[in-house]
């Protein structure tokens, strides 16, 4: 077996390969075990933790929707909450960043440098513990535990801003000029000419943002108490149930189902997700 394409003689590569393989196993094995466990009944699991189930029975996947609940919300509703919360905040965040990045990158106006500078500066500030203040401000705004919490996720000058700013900066202005000469206005030029070109970047950013929000349990736990998402709800369920009385196979069916959308998105957008990873890094 040809183990390496370069440095063929170095034994280090064999050692590292073994380390990689062991680490890979440590990632795969727990998921296989969890998957296998979902086919067991609770009783079967108690007597047989490590070995194969007797029969392949998918009932846990159906029962999970009925049984797993948090704050009187079953898993169907959690799924629904996860969808509107993740889709909503992703759309808002990407739109806001696109608008700000487009204008700051492409138009000269007073204050443009200030906006860019402030955006860089805020990214460098090591702020610890904004949550107490967030809680009181959101409470004053009346958006706590309310779908209006979505507006707190808008942003517009963070990581997405810098990626899109760099992208728009690299687009020649000629396209816009041509559109103007054809009678297009500022807004229609942006929507019809520039945004179609930015679509791949916006899509990658949206996928990354969606995954982040889908997985985030902190925000919904604190700020969306009565709208548990899959992430926060499946934690709250475990927290509210005594450890020994949790039906582990059922719980595993729930937590494994909760990662399906993310895994599907990753399979479709794998390359763009991994390439968007901070292209140029943070310059400043």
């Amino acid at each position: 077996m040809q183990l390496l394409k370069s440095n063929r003689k170095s034994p280090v590569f064999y050692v590292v390969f073994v380390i990689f393989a062991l680490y890979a196993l440590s990632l795969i094995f727990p998921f296989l075990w969890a998957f296998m466990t979902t086919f067991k009944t609770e009783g079967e699991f108690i007597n047989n933790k490590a070995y194969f189930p007797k029969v392949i029975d998918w009932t846990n996947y159906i029962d999970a929707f009925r049984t797993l609940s948090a704050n009187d919300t079953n898993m169907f509703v959690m799924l629904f909450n996860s969808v509107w919360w993740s889709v909503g905040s992703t759309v808002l965040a990407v739109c806001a960043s696109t608008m700000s990045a487009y204008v700051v990158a492409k138009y000269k106006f007073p204050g443009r440098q200030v906006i860019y500078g402030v955006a860089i500066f805020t990214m460098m500030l090591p702020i610890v513990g904004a949550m107490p203040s967030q809680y009181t401000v959101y409470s004053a705004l009346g958006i706590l535990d309310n779908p209006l919490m979505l507006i707190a996720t808008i942003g517009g000058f963070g990581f997405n801003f810098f990626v899109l700013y760099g992208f728009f900066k690299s687009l020649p202005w000629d396209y816009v000029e041509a559109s103007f000469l054809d009678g297009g206005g500022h807004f229609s030029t942006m929507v019809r000419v520039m945004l179609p070109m930015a679509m791949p970047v916006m899509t990658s950013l949206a996928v990354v943002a969606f995954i982040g929000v889908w997985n985030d349990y902190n925000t919904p736990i604190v700020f969306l108490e009565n709208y548990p998402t899959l992430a926060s709800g499946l934690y709250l369920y475990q927290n509210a149930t005594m450890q020994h009385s949790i039906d582990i196979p059922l719980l595993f069916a729930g937590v494994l189902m909760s990662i399906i959308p993310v895994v599907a998105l990753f399979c479709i957008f794998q390359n763009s997700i991994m390439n968007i990873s901070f292209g140029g890094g943070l310059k400043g």
Partner: protein
Amino acid sequence: MKSTQFKIKDRMPKTFRKGMPLFIISMLAVPVAWFIVFYVVVNFNSIILAFRSIVGVSSVGTPVYEWGFGNFLKFFEDFVLDTGDVQISLWNTLKYFALNVLCILPLTYFFAYFIYKKIWGHKFFRILFYMPSILSAVTMTTIYKNILGGYGPIDEFWKALTGNSIPAFFTSYELGTPIIMIYQVWVGFGVNMILYQGAMGRIPEEVIEAGKLDGISWWREMFQVVTPMIWGTLSTTLILAFTGLFNSSGPILLLTNGAFHTSTINFFIFNQVYRYSEYAYPAAIGLFFTVISLPIVFGFRALMNKLDPKVEY
């Protein structure tokens, strides 16, 4: 490349200059308004909260405040007298920070190098090692806890082998934080690994070839050729690690709920809000650590810029 910056004077037909201010304002209105309310006001409010304590209730039922350093004094008192989890939270935070800078980042770099050198199976490893950073922490910790916890499969195997149970990792004062740290390493390579690999992929082939002709070993290639070539990326990840110094933590809530001396500053502040509905006290703690970390972060940035080998290619 052509100028990409729009110049009003020579490139914009007159008729369109009119609509420009309105367009710019309408595009920036929402992001700027958001920034003012959700960044400026929130952080300003943090400062107000930190310096204000409720001392009573007025005759009409509104709270009466007293301004001063009360919240900070309470924090110092709690720290010195070691009440609550304040002291342990700071030590644990520093442990997670050290783990990140001294173990996870170097290991990530090491992993990235060998994947960059196209070790057998590199495509598969690259994707698999990235997976923990996109899978939900709730799912990962649920499985982790049940596999390593009492009566799990590891425990069963261990019992069959030795006749003894494995230690109760998640309910132990000695092992609680170490087991969360191991979790952090287990899931910690993804994003930075992709980042390092991307940077390594941009190194010109000739540079690597030249080293090969000189017959240098892998570690000399790694440290003396690759490291200076990707310095920009390396220092960015280190600066980000320092920026997050006092936010260093693991998924404490999910694994131990802060019990068994596993709290961190990040978790402590979260818990004050979530469990105790306290806002002023944690805001003061946050402000204190923000101020402390400012010189550290900016000093470290300056140091990194000084160390920059300034390789251009």
